[in-house]
């Protein structure tokens, strides 16, 4: 992976002499970077352009004269100044480099033939280029047990380690997870974890990628391939919606690994482990390669009834279901949930099919777990760089990037820790960014908008229960210093709280400050693409409001929906009431992901027909009539849209299993089966149609997107245009007064959950942790609960017995549970139609030696 320094614009030029020639470089730039930008590569091990230099390996020593005579200096620590004379080829430089390599090789084992790093090893390569021809070392090498597992996926071979501090520095500085560190001293120094505390970082895989030797290897890739046998394409990760650039590396039509690519505006070379190892799901057991259907067109819960069927038969069944729905109820009888996993092109194809052919507007890519589409589509979008602009103030409203968009978390963390960005974090409980926030405020569910009003200086007289007035004051003064220019990172922290509060809070900020931009913290891969392409009620491709559809749509599309349709909650409610005949799940699992389990169950039972397009049979898909197998990540080309609205190319690396095919093709074939021609026959051609029709994409040609110069993607027009969906201040969300015996429920996500893809990814499966009922320790006494004790938690929907755990970051009078945890589905407690969900908590009367009885009820 290239670790070349980012290109910079020279704003403060100085002239230095580099190997006898005069070159102009930026004053203050690190010499090692300046040399590389001028075509002179200085060997190095510890230096990494995305981490602070430490000057430890001493490989980058070069002879430099800064006016006080030439001496050997580490070029990774030296800043360019005028008239510096640098000799990277002098005898002294060469001898120092040779000497350092000889030292490094003294204790390095010669097991290159069985080392995963062999062939792509900086130590190997630089030994060839700069090392001594032979060794003078005749003594015993250092020995350690090899390798040891420092996490589920990372293996450490301390004999190979050259102690460059890259992994340990990454863990501390970049990830903020200092779970590995140097231990012992001198020549016995080693990298290690604390005993029995693994390197459990969401970002651990990066250490393998940046290790300059084979000391850290990835268990999933171990002994899988030699680097020269790999076929490599560059693409974008679609595990979440940050859009990290990756190379997908495959051999024999199997993806073996993903490595991060340094994209300056996005991921800086880093990946989260969920993204890095997510490709394992492609080859996982249960992956669908053929359509499934039921012998008879009768809906049944009996999963054995799902059997392999032909594509023709499957498409026929699906088309029949749609036709019969149209016959019975018209377009409103058809509804679609999902689509955020699809490429932009596939999303367009499906929207054209659904809105332009079938004519239904009951379409929602979010599963009631996101934020209102109007916030994303009706307000100007920010880039990640906007949110991280040095010295600026960024407000994180209700999202937890660490658990949902890990690389956005890294960028924001870096911004706060190293670039002086003030983060104002507002959410129902402490999250990943809380320790780095200048101000963190945690209002109770239902009080978010009140708090924001207090911050901007109106309402509530500046006081909100449970929030320190000094924090409100501090936030107000930070915002006052921004000249109104700020980024709001807006997400969905708690699934048991209505998004009306978030919309209200956003509207307050938008009207108080005039240059607010939104960075949506929505997690599904291409949710921005989906919303922009019209996968939400009332929207047409290009952020266009259905109500204001320009002529182009009615002329180029066979039909348009008659009026605004339903969102996911509406669709499920309608289905539960028997008003939806055919429900199409486009890569969606509402039983698992929709916050309200009961409603999702009733909906799937209430819909006459369920059609699924997916890669696996999940809980919801299991109830479908017919299942159409879709191509997955790395199996089809196209583009995706990240949270910034950045359009990024996706490249195909391998072919899909069996007869699984790209989603856009399924839409086109289904349209044909319905007797309509979508007129879409290739990804490139679909993009052309998008660029012609969509005001957001009008300037972005396929050629531009394919230009290697634009590998970081191109940001689609992020400002609302005339005719765009509009964000309007919502009516304040009503929530009834809560009684003093109840606690407000917060339901948050963790990166690893019991979701389909995590479960199919061998390296991540099993990492989902059990949830406990987190509550403020100050509430223990009032409720008679002990830390670690078992309690009954009950809502009007359901009840469970679970362990209570003290967590200072949970506000008093609320409790928090993790969504989709292995031991409990919080969805069984939530009513999606309640703006605030509340629960009661009672301690179990436990008797020593007895397991908890259902006491207290």
């Amino acid at each position, binding site marked *: 992976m290239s670790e070349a320094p980012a290109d910079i614009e020279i704003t403060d030029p100085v002239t230095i002499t580099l190997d006898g020639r005069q070159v102009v470089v930026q004053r203050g730039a690190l010499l090692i970077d300046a040399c590389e930008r001028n075509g002179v590569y200085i060997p190095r091990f510890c230096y990494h352009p995305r981490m602070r230099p430490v000057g430890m390996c001493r490989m980058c020593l070069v002879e430099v004269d800064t006016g006080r005579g030439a001496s050997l200096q580490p070029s990774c620590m030296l800043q360019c100044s005028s008239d510096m004379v640098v000799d990277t080829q002098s005898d002294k430089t060469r001898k120092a480099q040779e000497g350092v390599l000889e030292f490094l090789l003294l204790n390095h084992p010669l097991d290159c033939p069985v080392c995963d790093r062999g062939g792509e090893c900086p130590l190997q390569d630089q030994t060839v280029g700069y090392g001594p021809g032979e060794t003078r070392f005749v003594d015993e090498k250092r020995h350690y047990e090899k390798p040891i597992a420092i996490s589920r996926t990372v293996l450490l071979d301390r004999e190979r380690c050259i102690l460059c501090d890259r992994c340990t520095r990454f863990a501390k500085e970049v990830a903020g*997870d*200092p*779970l*590995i*560190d*140097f*231990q*012992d*001293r001198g020549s016995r120094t080693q990298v*290690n*974890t*604390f*005993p*029995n*505390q693994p390197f459990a970082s969401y970002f651990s895989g990066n250490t393998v990628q940046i290790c300059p030797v084979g000391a850290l290897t990835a268990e999933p890739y171990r002994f899988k391939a030699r680097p020269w046998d790999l076929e490599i394409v560059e693409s974008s990760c679609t595990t979440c919606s940050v859009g990290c650039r990756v190379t997908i590396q495959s051999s024999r039509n199997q993806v073996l690994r993903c490595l991060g690519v340094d994209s300056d505006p996005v991921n800086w070379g880093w990946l989260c482990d969920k993204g890095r190892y997510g490709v394992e799901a492609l080859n996982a057991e249960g992956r669908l390669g053929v359509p499934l259907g039921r012998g008879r067109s009768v809906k049944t819960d009996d999963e054995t009834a799902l059997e392999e069927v032909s594509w023709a038969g499957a498409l026929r069944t699906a088309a029949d279901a749609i036709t019969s729905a149209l016959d019975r109820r018209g377009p409103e009888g058809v509804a679609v949930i999902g689509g955020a996993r699809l490429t932009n092109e596939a999303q367009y194809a499906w929207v054209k099919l659904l809105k332009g052919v079938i004519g239904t507007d009951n379409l929602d890519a979010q599963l009631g777990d996101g934020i209102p589409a109007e916030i994303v589509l009706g307000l100007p979008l920010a880039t990640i760089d906007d949110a991280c602009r040095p010295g600026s103030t960024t407000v994180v409203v209700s999202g937890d990037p660490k658990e949902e968009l890990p690389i956005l978390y890294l960028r924001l963390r870096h911004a706060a820790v190293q670039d002086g960005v003030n983060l104002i974090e507002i959410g129902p409980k402490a999250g990943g960014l809380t320790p780095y926030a200048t101000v963190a405020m945690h209002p109770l569910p239902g009080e978010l908008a009140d708090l924001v009003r207090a911050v901007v200086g109106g309402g509530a007289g500046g006081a909100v229960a449970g929030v320190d007035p000094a924090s409100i004051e501090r936030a107000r003064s930070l915002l006052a210093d921004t000249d109104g220019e700020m980024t709001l990172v807006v997400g969905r922290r708690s699934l048991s709280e209505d998004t009306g509060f978030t919309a209200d809070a956003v509207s307050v900020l938008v009207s108080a400050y005039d240059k607010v931009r939104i960075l949506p913290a929505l997690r599904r891969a291409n949710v921005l693409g989906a919303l922009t392409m019209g996968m939400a009620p009332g929207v047409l491709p290009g952020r266009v409001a259905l109500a204001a559809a320009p002529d182009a749509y009615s002329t180029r599309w066979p039909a348009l929906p008659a009026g605004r349709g339903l969102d996911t909650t509406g669709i499920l409610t309608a289905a539960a009431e028997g008003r939806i005949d055919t429900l199409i799940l486009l890569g969606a699992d509402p039983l698992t992901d929709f916050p309200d389990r009961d409603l999702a169950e009733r909906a799937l039972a209430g819909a006459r027909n369920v059609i699924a397009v997916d890669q696996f049979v999940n809980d919801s898909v299991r109830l479908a009539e017919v299942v159409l197998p879709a191509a997955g990540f790395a199996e089809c080309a196209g583009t995706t849209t990240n949270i910034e609205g950045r359009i990024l190319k996706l490249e195909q690396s391998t072919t899909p299993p069996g007869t699984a095919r790209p989603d856009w093709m399924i839409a086109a074939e289904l349209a044909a089966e319905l007797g309509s021609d979508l007129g879409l026959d290739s990804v490139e051609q679909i993009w052309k149609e998008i660029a012609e029709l969509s005001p957001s994409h009008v300037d972005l040609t396929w050629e531009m997107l394919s230009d290697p110069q634009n590998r970081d993607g191109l940001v689609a027009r992020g400002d609302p245009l005339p005719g765009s969906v509009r964000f309007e201040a919502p009516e304040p969300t009503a929530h009834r007064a809560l009684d003093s015996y109840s606690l407000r429920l917060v339901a948050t996500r963790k990166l690893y959950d019991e979701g389909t893809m995590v479960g199919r990814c061998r390296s991540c499966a099993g990492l989902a942790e059990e949830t406990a009922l987190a509550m403020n320790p100050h509430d223990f006494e009032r409720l008679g609960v002990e830390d670690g004790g078992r309690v009954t938690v009950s809502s009007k929907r359901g009840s469970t017995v679970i362990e209570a755990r003290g967590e200072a970051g949970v506000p008093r009078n609320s409790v928090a549970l993790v969504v989709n945890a292995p031991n409990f589905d919080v969805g069984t407690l939530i009513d999606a139609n309640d703006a605030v969900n509340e629960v009661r908590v009672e301690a179990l009367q436990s008797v020593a030696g007895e397991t908890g009885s259902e006491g207290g009820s």
Partner: protein
Amino acid sequence: MPRLTPENVRRAKEIISRYPRPRSALIPLLHLAQEQDGWLTEDAMEDVAELVGVTPAQVIGTASFYEMFKMEPVGRYVINVCTNISCLLLGGETLLQHAEATLGIKPGSTTEDGLFTLEDVECVAACTEAPCLQVNYRYFYRVTNDDFDRILADLRDGDLSRDIPEHGILSRVPQRIPTGKVANITPPEDQRVPVWIERAAPDKAAAGGDEA
């Protein structure tokens, strides 16, 4: 496994309060843990990590860097024989060999009765008094083989217990800053220009520096 006692947690917090940043108290707190248990247990290191706000990996990273922190149990008395240059010249090696023979152990190990641990250490700053040794960091100067035997006997008999506490205890006099006398211990970002400097402020050199 032992963890810090409530009294030691109180002492730990007192020590932390003397530093602008809690992590600066890490080494003194590890000494406190070692004073309690004679060595550093994993549980104690986890306690210390929590007290100063770092990870246990960072605690062991720091602890293992320093000679005096023991990651496994050691004897009640740790005998450090100096063999660095000044002591070497005057019989430090011979003294060490005598110690090994007498105790029946090699440097780095502990006698079976758990009483003595022997170490072959670097210069302990008593060079004019060579050869020297320390028992639990208390000095013995110009030590002959006979002296060594006598020290062992006295240690066994408890005759030195007044001078030499059990391993882990360093200063028996803790620093105490009387309440109300603390001048100004706050994090660096909360510090301002000192008043006595400000008073003399027009004088640029006093407030500032020379050309570096």
